[in-house]
Structure formats: C-alpha cells, structure tokens
C-alpha cells in the first residue's frame, strides 16, 4: 500500500505541475466562454454607437410611425440606437433623392437610409442602404421598426388607430417545460446545452486521460525505467498507481472547473448579461444529483478506458505501434459521441436504452439520458453495474497483459499473442 501511494503521488505531482495541465485547466473554460460570449460581445460593441439614418417614404404616412418605432430602439448601454436625420415623404424626384443620400452614405455622413417603396403597404419589402450590411443587431432593430411602421400604416388604411403598436405586436414566447419525476422546471433549451456540454467534457477527458496513461506507460517502457520499477514494485500496484494518479489529475481538473463555474454562474451572471445585451441570456440548470452521476460514470468510464489504453501502452514498443493499436479503442469513444443523436432523438427508445447499457458507451450515453429525461433508477443502476463489472474485468486482463508486455520489446504483438500473454502464469 505504501508503494502504491508513492506511485500515485509521483504520477499526480509530475502531471499537475506541467504547463499542459495549467494551460488546459485555465485555457479550456476560457476558450469555451470565448466561443459563447465573444461574438455577442463584439456584436453589441459594434452597434454601440448611435447611427444617423434617413427615412425615404414613397408610400406616405409611414415616416412618423417609423421614426417613433426607431426612436424606441436602444443600444446595450441605453443610448438611442438611431438618430433620424431627415424624413422625406413622397420625394419629388425619387432617383435624385436616392442619389444624394447614397453620396452622403459614401461620404460617411449617414450610416444608411431606410426606403419604403410605394407598394409596401400591399406587401413587399422595405430596403436599407448601408455600407455595412453585416451588422445583424442593427438590421434586426430596423426590421422590427419597419414592421411596426408598415403594420401601423395598414391598420390606418382600415381606420384603426392604435396608441401602443409595440405592445400589440409583442411576440408570445413558448417556454418548453421538461416534465420529470423530480418536479417541473422551466427551461429554455438549456437541457440540451447541458447535455452537449457534459458529453463533450466526458468525451474529451476519456480520450485525453486514457491516451495520457498509454503514453506514460510506453515512455516508462521505452526509457527502460520499468525494469528498475519492477525490481521494487509488483506490476499490479504499479499499473493501478498510474491509472489512479492520472485519474486524480482529471478529477482535480473537474473540481477546479466546477468551482470556477459555480463562481461564474452566481457572481458573474450580471456582468455577462450586461454586455451580452440579453441576447444569450441563458443560465445553466445543473442539479447536484446530475453532478453526482456524472462523477460516478466518469470514474467508471475512465477506469475502463484507461486500463485498455494502459494495456496498449504496455504491448507497444513504439509510438507508431501504439497509434495503430489504439485505433479500435479510440473508435469506441468516438462512436459513443456519434451515438449522441440516437439518444437526443428519443432518449427512451429501445435503441437508446440498449446503447446506454453497453459499458463502452454508457459513461457518455447514460449521462446524456439522465440529462434529457428521467430514466428509471433500475436502468441507471443496471448500466452502472455492467460498467463497473466490465471495468473490473478489463483491469484484470490489462494487468496481465501489462506485466508481460512491459518487458517485451520488438515487433507489435498480434491479438493471438496478447491472448497468450494473458494466460501466462
């Protein structure tokens, strides 16, 4: 036990101190956050200032309606988004007006001009002329203002006067509510976010830490220190120490992320919503019981895959060997990622239930089912039981391959040879 502790401690300390660990621990959440928030942030920054525009109304009567609708639009900082420089109703010489305005846009005096064609009240579209058509926030604001103006115009034709057009036209959002045995929770598609996020985290860490274990064993083998180690420690504690040590590093990383995530969610939400202008205002619904299952299934999956990768590391003599041998195992991890869609389509179908029982897929797929719906407890426990039993079996077989493999150099062993190694005394 003392030696096992030493092996775990060395493995853990060596890894946690590396630059890779620090960079991936800090970098990965930053990268994810950047991918989520930066586009929104830049979009809001981009349209931050007030834009001067002109309105050309060939239909008649739309100018004031458009102006008041546009005047209500605000930027993230609360400033008016638009400044209406001029409203031209029924221009005498339509083409000359347009040409003059175009010149002003090109000269930078105008951000753009909004044109309502004569037939817009009978259907058809308004047009916005600008040098920068890619600004979606601005386009969206214009579209909603134009819609209000045109609908106001159409209502006026039918002699309907409406004071609060905006209130009348307000959209009715449909909230999707997940029904589960644990009580109802109002959600906005965040279940899907959480499921995908958990899936990606499990997928990357199973691959990353599994392959890490493999490389580390191969390194001990090719640097020949294995001979020194085996003259002091039995193969099983050595293998177990390695797998536990690397796993503990992954666990540490999760703890850091979870703590950091909790801080961001509770204290940073206001900050985030300040510059994301409410456009990406989702908050994660991540209950404790899900976190618990996540850890349990991660550990089961990690032990299963890490010991498979460990056997490969022990059987191979070179990086090329290892890369070839690990293909079937990596394919299993990748496959469970692609089987995502089966579960997402219907988490309760026979296919989903069956797949979430297969130990190579269950760490990812059962967590996915747990996030999306509430599978019966017996299914979760059965899947976990199968996972644990297979992990124990695989660890046993891997240890037997390991103890022979680490001392074998030369050509890549065939499956038949690996089977023979398992049977050695």
């Amino acid at each position, binding site marked *: 036990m003392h030696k096992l502790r030493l092996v775990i401690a060395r493995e853990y300390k*060596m890894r946690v101190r590396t630059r890779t660990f620090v960079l991936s621990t800090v970098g990965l959440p930053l990268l994810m956050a950047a991918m989520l928030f930066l586009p929104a942030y830049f979009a809001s920054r981009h349209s931050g200032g007030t834009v001067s525009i002109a309105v050309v109304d060939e239909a008649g009567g739309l100018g004031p309606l458009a102006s008041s609708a546009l005047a209500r639009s605000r930027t993230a900082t609360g400033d008016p988004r638009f400044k209406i420089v001029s409203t031209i109703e029924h221009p005498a010489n339509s083409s000359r007006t347009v040409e003059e305005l175009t010149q002003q846009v090109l000269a930078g005096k105008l951000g753009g001009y909004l044109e309502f064609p004569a037939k817009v009240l009978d259907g058809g579209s308004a047009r916005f002329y600008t040098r920068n058509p890619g600004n979606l926030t601005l386009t969206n604001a214009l579209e909603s203002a134009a819609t209000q103006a045109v609908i106001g115009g159409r209502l006026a034709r039918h002699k309907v006067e409406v004071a609060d057009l905006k209130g009348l036209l307000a959209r009715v959002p449909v909230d999707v509510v997940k029904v589960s045995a644990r009580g109802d929770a109002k959600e906005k598609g965040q279940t899907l976010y959480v499921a995908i996020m958990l899936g990606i985290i499990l997928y990357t860490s199973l691959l990353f830490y599994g392959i890490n274990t493999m490389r580390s064993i191969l390194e001990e083998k090719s*640097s020949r220190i294995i*001979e020194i*180690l085996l*003259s*002091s420690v039995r193969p099983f504690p050595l293998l177990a120490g390695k797998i536990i040590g690397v796993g503990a590093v992954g666990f540490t990383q999760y703890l850091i992320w979870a703590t950091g995530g909790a801080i961001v969610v509770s204290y940073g939400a206001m900050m985030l919503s300040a510059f994301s202008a409410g456009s990406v205002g989702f908050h994660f619904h991540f209950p404790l019981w899900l976190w618990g299952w996540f850890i349990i299934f991660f550990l089961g999956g990690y032990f299963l895959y890490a010991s498979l990768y460990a056997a490969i590391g022990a059987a191979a003599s070179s990086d090329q060997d290892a890369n070839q041998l690990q293909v079937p195992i990596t394919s299993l991890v990748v496959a469970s990622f692609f089987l995502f869609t089966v579960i997402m389509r219907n988490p309760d179908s026979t296919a989903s239930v069956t797949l979430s029982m297969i130990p190579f897929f269950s760490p990812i797929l059962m967590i996915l089912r747990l996030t999306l719906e509430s599978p019966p407890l017996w299914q979760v426990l059965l899947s976990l039981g199968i996972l644990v039993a297979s992990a124990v079996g695989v660890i046993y077989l891997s240890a037997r391959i390991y103890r022979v493999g680490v001392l074998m150099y030369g050509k890549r062993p065939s499956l038949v040879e690996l089977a*023979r190694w398992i049977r050695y005394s």
Partner: protein
Amino acid sequence: MNALELDKVTKAYDGLTAVSNLNLRIAQSSIFGLLGPNGAGKTTTLRMILRIILPDSGTIRVMGAPLTETVQDRIGYLPEERGLYTRMAVRPLLVFLGGLKGLKESEANRRAKQWLERFEIAAWSERKLEELSKGMQQKVQFIAAVLHDPPLLILDEPFTGFDPMNVAAVKNVMMEMHDRGTTIILSTHRMEQVEMMCDSICLVDHGKQLLDGDLREIKRAYGKNTVRIEFAGTRNGFDLARFATSVNRYGTVVEARLRPEIDPQEILKAAVAQNISLARFELVEPPLADIFVEKVTAAHA
C-alpha cells in the same frame, strides 16, 4: 549461509527455454560473476532473482528466505539497459526510487545528498535528468542501485558508459560494500574484470549451466598450459600455430594454448634457432576469455 540459492529454476517463453534447470549457490559476501554469450539467459536469470518475472518451476531463496516483496527491498539492481525518468529532477527521483525500496523520505534525502556529493554531481541535484550528460546520468543510475544499502547488489555491465576515472569510483564503492559484507552479482562480458574481481562464476549458454564454481579452482583445473610470450624486437614470421591449439595476438604479446603433446621448451628452442629475441616467456593458466570461448564453442558443436 548462502546469499542466494537457485534450485532447478526453469523459465520458458512460448516454448523457447530461456533458462533450464539452473542451480546456483552464491556465498554471502562474495563477488559472483554471471557469464555467458548474448542471449544465454543471463538477463532472464537476473530478472527472476529480482522477482521481475516468476520462474515456471524451481525455487529461489534470498538470504534463506523465499522471494517476497520485502526481500525485493533488500536487493539493489543496476540493469544493463539504463533508464530513468528524464523529466524528473535528480534528487526527487532518487528519493522516489529509494522510497520504493522502503526508505523513509528524510533518510532517502540524506543519503541521496551524500552520494551526489561523493560522485561530484551535487550541483545538479535539482536539475532535470534530461539536462545531465550521459556520464552523469549513469552515476545517478548507479546511486539508485545502492541508495538503500542492499545486502545483495546485482550489477549488469556496471562499467559501460563510464570514463576510467568513474570506473575507478564505481569499483571503489563496490569494494567498500564488499568489505562490509554485501554480496555482489556481476554480469559482464569483460573477462579481465571478472578475473580481477570475482570469487566464483557461473557460465551459462542457451539457458544451461556450462561451468560453475570457484574461479581459482576452475582455472587451476585447466593447468598452466598456456605460454605468454613478449617479443623484444621483430617476431619475423615466428609461427606458434604448429605448437598451439589457439593463438591470441595482442601486438607485442602473444598467448598460445599448447597442444597436449608439446613441451614448452620446444618453443624456446625454436625461437633461439630462428634468432628471435624474447622479452618474456611465461607459463600461465589460460585467461578466462579462452575458457569462455572454448566452453561455448564446445557446447555449440
């Protein structure tokens, strides 16, 4: 008491016998030479003694006790293929390896410092191994084998990779430990070292014992049937082959194993007759290298 006893130890890999029916008795406090051509089964034997692999049959006893993990802690090992964690710093690595042999951290630290000073690499103790020269890495590897002061020390080609000064340093450590009663098993191809250091030897080939016992007795059994001649000037086509079964030439010195029917005097007469002047003419026991070659060649025939 014997430091090590092997009884009918056999190990096969996929039907190929690496070691077959090996019996060894290694006396406590002796220096023992394990010899044999490449692929003879030496490394397999050493690995079984170290419990890195287990024999298919037979028993191994170290200091009278069957091999267990605690016994493993009392053996020091310098493998032929050297290797360490290159990304670890020297002192922490030694403390880790010492810990695996049962040393407490503080004790391992203290000893590591002493040894690093003795081998004059104390200034490098917090540097990573990959920053050290090959020679310095070899020193660290040797320290790792002796750090826990094992009563049984197994050295596989201990002098390769060292310059003559460090060879002397390593040899001094070995002799000090020998004086304190450490049993040393030496596996090497350098016969002159075996002849100088070892009390007894075992010669193995194809997993079988060809020769085994006290080195002096083995050599005595061959008798003084070898002449060593040092020429003073030119050797001028002086042909020894007609007197000898084998001739080894080392520049001015020649060693010849005489045919049984030849009287050494005949060679001297022939030299005088051909007017060849000799600086030295000596009857000696055959060098171990010759015995090695003869035994292995005979076994292959």
